């Protein structure tokens, strides 16, 4: 009986100390981790989407509350004076989990500026081409927000990546999600940017 | 009581009284028609590639023999066969360093590491080819390799053309042309007739097992026929597949490699058929234009498993007898 109690006490103590320690480390690193994700995952995608903006989209970012949680918005002022916004959505059902897609939309013309894959765990050389080879994502360039962004195989307008249809479909899911979010959030985005 | 334990060694078992030297000499003899045709077709560079490949393979084996302080085994010509086959699977303009590295991988990693002759679980030549193709696939594109050549026939690699343009491209290549080597490809793999003659010679002399070659070809024909029948527009016909790429070289010289293939008749038939089936699957469904190399390596893995199908031992009627 004594052994039993000592087992329970030791394990409980260990687990709770470990839990407390981890909570402390987690809260201590949280801000920095967010900055790092911003710097290494989102910043490259945003920079390659907004090649000639006159402002700093990363500095001027703001958060919007949606049903699915907080969404980071990166506003950009394009060369011709029109405003655009970029945000990240996640497409379900990739070969290696969800695929992050940064979508930039022109607020004045309601057209997609473009899209870039941010995070993925797809097969190198096949699915990873969604990120590395821009011919696939450049199909999103200048598409109107109400265009059908599904794959051609799903009666949409986007060519799949040969050998990586699953990946391509997940990317289009992210793009379609971005369209929905945009149409819901447009008034709020405009309010924030003013 | 005599308690001597007899250990049964692994394949190959069959023996016809010939030495390894004679066997390998006959293998090279059988390869000669296709090799000579390759030299005639692609000129002196083809001779250079094959000569370098053959000599490098033997040299590597000698070097490894010296390092491991074992008696030199190059006299049995096994390395020479690996080198010759390897050279015949390359395009004629392959850079020298590819051949040096490739023969090293084939002889050292493919064969010597497993204890030399008879020990290799994979076909050594194919290990070399697969590793090279993984690293330097751009040098194995037969279309760009022969860009400086002038041919009197369609200067397109048949399998790559079919892969890129669909089954309609197969009509550009007459079957007779493919059989007579009027196609672009590896030095020793284009002359189908020569390979068939060499292969039949080996089978008649008993060096290559007919079960393997026949079931391999059957696997290709049956699978390709099924694909072709299901959708003639999408998939090329069975004879086209049989006569293009490495297929014939594979059927008579690669899948019959004795150390990595099964030893009993039924397993051999399954093994060969599976190889042919995998090749067509890779060509029609997979990402590779010519799946011969990977398909044979894949069935090499299955070989020990297939050898579990074996006849009952004589006199073993009851348990614990």
């Amino acid at each position: 009986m004594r052994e039993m109690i000592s087992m329970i006490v030791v394990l409980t103590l260990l687990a709770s100390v470990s839990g407390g320690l981890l909570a402390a480390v987690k809260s201590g690193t949280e801000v920095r981790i967010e900055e790092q994700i911003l710097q290494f995952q989102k910043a490259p995608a945003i920079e390659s989407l907004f090649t000639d903006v006159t402002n700093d989209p990363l500095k001027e970012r703001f958060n919007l509350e949606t049903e699915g949680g907080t969404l980071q918005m990166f506003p950009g002022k394009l060369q011709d004076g029109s405003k655009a916004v970029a945000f990240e959505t996640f497409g379900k059902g990739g070969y290696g989990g969800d695929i992050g897609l940064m979508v930039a939309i022109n607020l004045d013309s309601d057209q997609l500026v473009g899209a870039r894959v941010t995070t993925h765990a797809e097969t190198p050389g096949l699915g990873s081409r969604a990120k590395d080879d821009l011919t696939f994502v450049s199909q999103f360039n200048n598409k109107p927000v109400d265009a059908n962004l599904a794959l051609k195989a799903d009666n949409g307008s986007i060519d799949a990546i040969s050998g990586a249809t699953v990946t391509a479909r997940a990317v289009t899911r992210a793009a379609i999600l971005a369209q929905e979010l945009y149409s819901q959030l447009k008034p709020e985005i405009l309010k924030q940017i003013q | 009581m005599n308690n001597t334990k007899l250990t049964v060694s692994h394949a190959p078992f069959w023996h016809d009284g010939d030495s390894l030297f004679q066997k390998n000499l006959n293998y090279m003899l059988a390869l000669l028609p296709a090799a000579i045709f390759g030299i005639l077709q692609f000129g002196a560079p083809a001779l250079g590639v094959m000569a370098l490949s053959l000599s490098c393979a033997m040299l590597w084996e000698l070097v490894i023999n010296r390092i491991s302080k074992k008696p030199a085994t190059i006299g049995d010509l096994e390395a020479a066969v690996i080198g010759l086959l390897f050279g015949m699977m390359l395009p004629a303009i392959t850079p020298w360093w590819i051949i040096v590295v490739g023969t090293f991988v084939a002889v050292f990693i493919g064969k010597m590491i497993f204890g030399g002759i008879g020990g290799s679980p994979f076909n050594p030549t194919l290990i070399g080819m697969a590793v090279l193709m993984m690293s330097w696939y751009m040098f194995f594109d037969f279309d760009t390799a022969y860009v400086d050549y002038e041919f009197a026939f369609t200067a397109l690699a048949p399998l790559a053309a079919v892969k890129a343009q669909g089954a309609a491209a197969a009509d550009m290549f007459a079957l007779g042309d493919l059989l007579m080597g009027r196609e672009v490809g590896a030095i020793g793999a284009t002359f189908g007739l020569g390979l068939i003659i060499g292969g039949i010679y080996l089978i008649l002399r008993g060096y290559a097992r007919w079960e393997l070659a026949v079931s391999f070809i059957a696997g290709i024909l049956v699978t390709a026929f099924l694909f072709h029948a299901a959708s003639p527009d999408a998939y090329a016909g069975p004879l086209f597949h049989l006569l293009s790429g490495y297929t014939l070289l594979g059927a008579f010289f690669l899948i019959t490699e004795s150390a990595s293939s099964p030893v009993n008749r039924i397993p051999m038939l399954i093994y060969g058929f599976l190889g042919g089936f995998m090749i067509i699957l890779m060509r029609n469904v997979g990402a590779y234009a010519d799946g011969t190399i990977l398909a044979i390596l894949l069935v090499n893995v299955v070989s020990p498993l297939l050898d579990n199908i074996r006849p009952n031992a004589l006199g073993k009627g009851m348990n614990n007898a």
Partner: protein
Amino acid sequence: MAQSLAKEFTKGLWAEIPPFRLVLGLCPTLAVTKTVENGIGMGLATTFVLVFSNLLISILRNAIPPKVRIACYIVIIATFVTIVELVMQAFTYPLFLTLGIFIPLIVVNCIVLGRAEAFASKNTPVLAVADGLGIGIGFTLSLASLGAVRELIGAGTITIWGGNPVFAVGDWYHPFSFMVEAPGAFVALGLMLACMNLIGKK
């Protein structure tokens, strides 16, 4: 005391160098050693976990009931692994991305559990730390050397830290990219093991 301390430390560097002599911890060894940098990063993360889990387990070795000792070890190891994961995410994010799943998998790395069970639970904290440090550095060195072989042959570069190569062979070199692929890892590890045995024999 000082002598045995030195002995416990140095045995991890040669006589019991984990992947080559003990043939332990092969999963990260094979998976992450595409570059020297990955090898060093993985090795340092494992060293950190090893040292602190060894220390804590050695301190608590009389308090931990033998029947639940493995569960206790796992809780301790998992805590340190999670700390490493969070810290790497915060400070070396690109490295964290390339190492990916293999950081959390340190928990089930048999080197860490093996040292806890075989050494730390029977020895004093000072010796346990020396043992963890030695084994950890040995592991880092092996990963870095395997990474160096694979990266040099497979990509023609050497990357020690920060993602930029400190050495590149040059444009004339056609990288033998087989070596940075998965099968190349097995071949390279096998050849290095063979070399180690060859040296050890003499």
